[in-house]
């Protein structure tokens, strides 16, 4: 570390040394002071618009925004003077005067940044006229709910939608007190460029952008004696759930999660990883088929529903690149309501299939007509990691001290390859393990294929398998996906196989994950998934014993006609509109 790169300053009289470029807000954290903030988000560009982080800097006439101001040598900051308190508290009072304060019935009750700030500043009674207007809630889609009355105009959602996803489905409109966050022509998200990725619901500090809550639907089914309620949990939920119960980021809580799900009342607790194994097996088979028969290349993954929405809406001409294999969730539900139902002698309509997903686009996926029969959907309800947290809290479970429990047989069985599905690069790595073996008849020399690991937006590699020299790419966030798709559109993309996930880091950073999710937490969750893989007995999807049994007894072989009927799907070019 070069000495010139360090800066000395004082905050509330306490000296602190920071790197050049550090903002006051970050420097204060080193002294364990949390300067109040609303628009600031560690993974986003500085917006400096809420102004609640205003602090006093000696020698400056006005207060400075701590989130936006770089420290300088000899700077003296005060975060606790009267004028700072009056200002920060005043800004909070201004926000509250324009806020529909119905915390008791708000989806963010208990984990709302605004609520926390009001408690911190001891706002006891309003001193300003209440000026909030009644505004209509947007609910015209299965995934997202937008309640503009609760919006604090921080702009975090706009930044993530634009800077991370490159979509720009939401933006600011109007001026002065008429400023609002809205969609083009004020339409529902379904009619805009939005792909329902849900990233905006993760960063929103309040209850303005939230997922559609389906937990009641799940409880109703549990209370219905005629229903067998069966739950599957996505790989990335088990490494994110612990965050909400005070465990360190990236804690692996698989077995506690299973125990909690049983206590909530699910009849069977299964693992989406099983579905992931199936997806990988079919997808590897599809890749080999495309390679051998010179069909449409490159092939891209299709397990991420926001990515599929993105292709359908934004690149409708490129639909044929999408693998026809169903996503792990949908492939799981399809098997559940056919082979499993038959085997257990349950009428499929009496099975209520619940998926716990890190994702809100899955709520839309579950409503795709092609993923069900005669108006009955294979997946009956999707709840997010956040939804599961709510259910755990409702039952009153002391999660951290739970007795550990195991998934049920047979669809609780899975491999390490299924687990890494939850991170960017994981699907690719898992598919390569299987494809390698099938093409060469040998095991892959090293199972861990590191070139596709890590947080970089677009990773490329070449793998030699048999006579094929495969050019592969792993992409996360839709902004990066667009870069690849733009090349593909003009024929300048010579990849053979591309893995694409819409959310930063893949599902571990998904739009249904806890609102505390940051890139830093996401990276810890990625490592946790690789750890699960490393410690698994089986690490290649096609080795999953129940999967082998399924093919032997029911589906014949991967890629068979029967497998195609049950495990594959189709896509549809869309104008901007989703039809439900």
């Amino acid at each position, binding site marked *: 570390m070069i000495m010139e790169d360090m800066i000395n300053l004082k905050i509330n009289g306490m000296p602190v040394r920071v790197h050049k470029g550090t903002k006051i807000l970050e420097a204060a954290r080193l002294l364990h002071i949390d300067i109040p903030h609303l628009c600031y988000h560690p993974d986003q560009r500085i917006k400096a618009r809420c102004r609640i982080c205003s602090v006093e800097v000696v020698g400056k006439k006005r207060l400075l*925004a701590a989130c936006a101001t770089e420290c300088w040598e000899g700077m003296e900051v005060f975060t606790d003077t009267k004028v700072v308190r009056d*200002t920060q508290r005043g800004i909070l009072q201004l926000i509250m005067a*324009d806020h529909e304060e119905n915390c008791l019935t708000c989806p963010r009750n208990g984990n709302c940044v605004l609520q926390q700030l009001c408690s911190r500043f001891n706002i006891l009674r309003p*001193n300003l006229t209440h000026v909030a207007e009644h505004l209509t809630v947007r609910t015209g889609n299965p995934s997202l709910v937008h309640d503009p009355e609760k919006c604090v105009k921080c702009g975090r959602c706009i930044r993530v939608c634009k800077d991370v996803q490159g979509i720009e489905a939401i933006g600011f409109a109007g*001026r002065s*007190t008429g400023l609002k966050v809205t969609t083009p022509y004020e339409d529902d998200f379904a009619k805009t460029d939005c792909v329902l990725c849900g990233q905006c619901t993760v960063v929103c500090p309040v209850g303005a952008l939230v997922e559609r809550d389906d937990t009641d639907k799940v409880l109703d089914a549990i209370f219905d004696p005629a229903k067998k309620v069966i739950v599957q949990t996505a790989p990335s939920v088990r490494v994110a759930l612990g965050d909400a119960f005070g465990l360190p980021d990236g804690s692996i809580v698989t077995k506690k999660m299973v125990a909690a799900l049983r206590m909530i009342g699910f009849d069977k607790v299964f693992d989406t990883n099983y579905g992931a194994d199936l997806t990988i097996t079919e997808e590897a088979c599809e890749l080999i088929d495309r390679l051998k028969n010179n069909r449409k290349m490159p092939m891209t993954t299709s397990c991420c529903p926001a990515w599929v929405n993105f292709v359908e809406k934004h690149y409708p001409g490129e639909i044929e690149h999408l693998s026809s294999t169903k996503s792990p969730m949908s492939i799981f539900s399809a098997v559940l309501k056919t082979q499993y139902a038959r085997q257990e002698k349950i009428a499929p309509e009496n099975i209520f299939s619940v998926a716990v997903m890190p994702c809100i686009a899955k709520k839309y996926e579950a409503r795709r007509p092609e993923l069900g029969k005669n108006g009955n959907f294979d997946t009956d309800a999707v709840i997010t990691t956040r939804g599961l947290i709510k259910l755990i809290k409702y039952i009153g479970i002391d999660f951290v001290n739970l007795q550990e429990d195991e998934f049920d047989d047979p669809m609780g069985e899975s491999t390490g390859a299924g687990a890494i599905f939850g991170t960017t690069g994981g699907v690719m790595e898992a598919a390569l393990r299987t494809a390698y073996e099938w093409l060469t008849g040998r095991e892959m020399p090293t199972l861990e294929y590191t070139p596709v690991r890590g947080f970089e937006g677009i990773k490329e590699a070449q793998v030699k398998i048999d006579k094929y020299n495969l050019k592969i790419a792993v992409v996360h966030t839709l902004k990066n996906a667009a870069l690849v798709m733009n090349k593909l559109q003009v024929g300048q993309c010579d990849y053979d196989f591309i893995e694409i996930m819409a959310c930063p880091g893949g599902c571990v950073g998904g739009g249904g994950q806890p609102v505390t999710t940051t890139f830093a937490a996401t990276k810890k969750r990625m490592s946790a998934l690789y750890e699960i893989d490393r410690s698994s007995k089986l690490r290649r999807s096609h080795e999953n014993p129940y999967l082998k049994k399924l093919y032997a007894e029911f589906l014949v072989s991967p890629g068979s006609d029967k497998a195609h009927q049950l495990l594959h799907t189709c896509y549809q070019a869309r104008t901007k509109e989703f039809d439900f």
Partner: protein
Amino acid sequence: MENIKYITENFGKYDISSIDSYMSIGGFEALRKAVAMDGDAVAAVLSEAKIKGRGGAEYPMGRKWSQARVVKRPHHCVVCNADEGETCTFKDRELIKNDPFNLIEAIIIAGWTVNAEDAYIYLRAEYACLRPRIINAIQQAEEHDFLGKNILGTGWSYNIHLYSGAGAYVCGEGTALIRSIEGKAGRPRMKPPFMKQSGLFARPTCINNVESLSIVPHLLRNALPYMQAGTKESVGTKLISVGGNVNKPGVYEIPFGISIRDIIYDLAGGVQEGRNIRLIQFGGASGKISDDRILDIPYSYESFAANNLIIGSGSVLVIDERTSVIDFLRYTQDFFLHESCGQCTPCREGNRHIRIFLEKIKNGIHTDEDIRTMKTFATVMPMSSLCGLGETAQNALKSAFTIFPEVFTVKKSAGGI
């Protein structure tokens, strides 16, 4: 009072549609002088004349130019701020209307000084009628090789582009203005990055007001009369826009240092029908107010600073006794409530609550607590707003607290209820 014509020297002296006519009275001589000088020398002339920006922020112009020219990044540009959105301010309009070629010459000199490749004029939307004469002046300057490639054989190339404003007051703020030209919504952004580093299209940008620029050719041609006018700290002359309840509203060129009384009672012909003055606001809606106690102070930066006033855009708005202080403040507040861009909390929300308090006061239903809260927010807003609009929106109110404390007092009801 003696009439001084320095910045307005060319008014009426030439045919504003003809560059030849402009050149016949010495037009473009200043440019020829400038290109024979080093840019630093040009900036030094401005520094010596102590010119402060005439758009409102009063930033020393010579310093701005010498800082701009040394920025290492390529593709510098110049912006002429002709948005003139401040209330009771219409001097830039007169400058463009009566002397468009002088402005074009000034913008070329600015480009030469700061090593720019392009200039952009951001013209207030309501001034659409001035567009043809600006376009004509640019075209003729191009035809005479004062614009385009290899200007005056220097090897330097430069072009001027004209943009129409978006019709919002806030677009006169530098960062909102450049975003507006870029085709984005005209909302200010935080600084840094500063304009001189990264402004329009992320290029190093030097932005000046029409009047600030218009002084430059005159100064290069013949500085002496300017240097001899004014006071020690406020050198030279200034265009002021006088309006409100005066007999002769209009734009006047004055030497710094004459009294406010001279401005109102001599130049502007006094208050209509001899009424008394209720208040005077200087520098537009964002300016401060006073009553007639300041009539005999000199109009200069130093005397204004001593009297808690600001020159700002150079407007003088005279309000006579028929309008109450509270009504005036309500109208001013309406202006900001309409013009705030709304992106930062203190300004977006603060304006409407101040407006609500003023309404209460007008209706006589305010409490001591209301006044305390209003005073807090009149400080919170300027302390924490993102841009100059929120910073200055309560200037009038805050000066009213000191000048007219009586209008805020709570009337104790006789019944004692």
